[in-house]
């Protein structure tokens, strides 16, 4: 479809000069256009935007996106090249360690905050250095090819979701930065309560719950009665959130099916290839979603005038001022389900389609293995076991890391109710315990 204006011409004329980004996009796009779901669309275009060279008109147009955008009326998906490079940064950084538990970024929150800050402030040079020395030892193949495959999986994870919006006939879909450092954080209690209660429903639906705060999930609870008043006052916002979540779930379903189809095609009848592809996919989704979560947390804390050091410190800051739970609604964005939730659900759906692990009786299941990475090069059975364990550990850690977001959502959803109580009984002290990454890893180690 031709876009008949100068911005459209600019979009159509641009192609990335970055060889890695081009290669990855091409691979992911081929997977999409060759998918079964493609038969439902008569036309589909991919456009790339590079904010460094884009015209002011394009940057201000409806086609501009920080990350990815699907437009039904244009039958197109638009990708910001810079977003792809951020994906690459996260993938290459985490891929330096073969084993999840040896990653230096999981030692403490400060390592993760340091990583997201240093990669942002010296983006091009850091990426050039990572490209110069590609490392992905766990994949047991050419290291650069392993990185490209992993990046392709992540690009597919995001693109296939936008593709899902087009297949579903949704007017627009967008993956955008959750915390835009250039915009003010949420300050409206009404909007925060409506949005966070919707997230509570979504978390609860997938069993990401908060023991002791179960009341918040129940529609007839006192907390939700107060929240309902906010919903009634903001009916448009509430209705929009409902449509968003429904569309998001539909788009995710299409994306998950497409990724499973892609993995099956890649592996063919070769079990080893299939398992390696699954390993790369799970590693990629894990790395990028954790990186983005910490980038959002960092941006959020900076937006409210604080320097993020750890989630334990975050706990004290949130306790200091109830308004911060209202501000924290910004952490959940306006366009998507929460990234970590999406990543965990996709990982589980794809793993279920590719392995029998979830069907095993609980006593026969373990996310850990005795197999050492040094022994997997020449032993296909050991390799398979080690890859599966690495996938399961990443999946489990994603689920554990959801804890902070779940707590913020539950507290935020209850804010109206808490405010009412405090108006009657005076100030109350509510403290949520946010787990730093090292504690999450300790928890992971305790899982069977």
């Amino acid at each position, binding site marked *: 479809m031709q876009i008949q204006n100068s911005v459209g011409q600019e979009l159509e004329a641009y192609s990335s000069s970055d060889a890695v980004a081009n290669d990855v996009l091409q691979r992911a796009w081929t997977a999409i256009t060759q998918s079964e779901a493609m038969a439902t669309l008569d036309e589909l275009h991919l456009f790339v935007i590079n904010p460094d060279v884009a015209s002011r008109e394009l940057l201000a147009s409806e086609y501009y996106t920080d990350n990815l955008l699907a437009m039904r009326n244009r039958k197109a998906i638009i990708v910001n090249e810079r977003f792809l490079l951020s994906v690459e940064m996260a993938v290459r950084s985490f891929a330096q360690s073969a084993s999840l538990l040896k990653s230096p970024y999981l030692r403490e929150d400060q*390592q993760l905050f340091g990583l997201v800050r240093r990669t942002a402030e010296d983006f091009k040079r850091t990426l050039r250095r990572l490209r110069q020395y590609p490392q992905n030892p766990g994949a047991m193949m050419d290291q650069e090819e392993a990185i490209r495959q992993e990046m392709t999986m992540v690009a597919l994870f995001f693109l296939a979701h936008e593709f899902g919006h087009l297949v579903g006939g949704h007017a627009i879909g967008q993956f955008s930065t959750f915390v835009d450092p250039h915009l003010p954080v949420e300050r409206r209690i009404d909007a925060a309560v409506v949005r966070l209660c919707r997230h509570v429903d979504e978390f609860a639906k997938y069993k990401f719950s908060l023991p002791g705060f179960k009341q918040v999930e129940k529609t007839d609870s006192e907390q939700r009665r107060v929240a309902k008043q906010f919903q009634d006052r903001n009916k448009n916002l509430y209705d929009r959130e409902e449509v968003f979540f429904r569309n998001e779930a539909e788009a995710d379903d299409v994306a998950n099916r497409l990724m499973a189809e892609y993995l099956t095609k890649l592996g063919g009848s070769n079990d080893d290839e299939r398992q390696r592809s699954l390993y790369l996919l799970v590693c990629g989704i894990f790395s990028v979603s954790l990186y983005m979560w910490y980038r959002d947390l960092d941006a959020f804390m900076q937006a409210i005038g604080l320097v993020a050091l750890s989630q334990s410190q975050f706990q004290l800051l949130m306790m200091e001022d109830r308004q911060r739970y209202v501000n924290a609604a910004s952490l959940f964005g306006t366009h998507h389900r929460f990234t970590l939730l999406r990543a965990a659900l996709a990982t589980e759906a794809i793993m279920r389609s590719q392995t029998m692990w979830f069907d095993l009786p609980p006593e026969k299941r373990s996310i850990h293995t005795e197999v050492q990475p040094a022994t997997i090069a020449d032993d296909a059975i050991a390799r398979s076991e080690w890859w599966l364990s690495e996938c399961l550990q990443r999946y489990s850690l994603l689920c554990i890391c959801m804890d902070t977001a779940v707590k913020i959502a539950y507290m935020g959803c209850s804010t109206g109710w808490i405010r009412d109580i405090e108006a009657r009984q005076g100030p109350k002290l509510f403290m949520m315990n946010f787990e730093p990454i090292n504690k999450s890893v300790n928890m992971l180690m305790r899982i069977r």
Partner: protein
Amino acid sequence: MDQQNIEQSRAAANQGISAIKDGRNDEASQLFNSALGYADDIVNDRARRDELSALAALFDMCGFPDLGVMAAQEAVDLDRTLALDSLTAQDLLEVGNAQMALGNKIEAGKCFREALDTFLRREEYANAASANTNLSGIFADDGDMLKARAMLKTSLEYLKKAPFDNTEMQTRLGLLQIMEFTNDDLEESMANARELCSRFFRSMDPQRKDATRQFVARLGKRYKAAHPKTSTTTWMAKNFPALSRKARS
């Protein structure tokens, strides 16, 4: 221009060390990355190599092997370009150390082996001992204790030809652990422990001192089991005066 980049790189590295002392690893991560950036801008290959090599060691020591591995790999590339044979091997040791810290034992092993071959070819035995001792750690980690023990003994042979205290201390410490694990000959284990304690105990950091004390205490129990009439206190004072109560007081 190069001098300015060298100074800025070193200043950023020093600030990174201060940030670590202040408990700010997030800032240290940014500052070390910045130091790496300035080092990258040094035009003279030899000067760039020297800075990168020093930074690699610093990053590994400070717990940033992700940065250390890249700095060391770049240093190795420059060493090869400049045909600096011995320094290539030394920087390979650093790449190997960073890879070990990242959990990549296969990659670490390749680096240590290549370094070992170079050092032996050049008859640089102190460095060869260092590479060999590091390599033995991989075998020990994989459970091949006999191979690891044999390699550590080979390292001691190399060190006889070219003594180097720090490597000998590491080697003997490794041997102390492996000999306990394999329940080695008591006299031989004691001889190694005696050598380690008499020559290196005073210069050990507190962590190593603690570990050594515990190993020696267990060695004492083994000795006591074999020689029930011996007093452990006397045995300790006689064999390990640096560790005895009197020495501690």
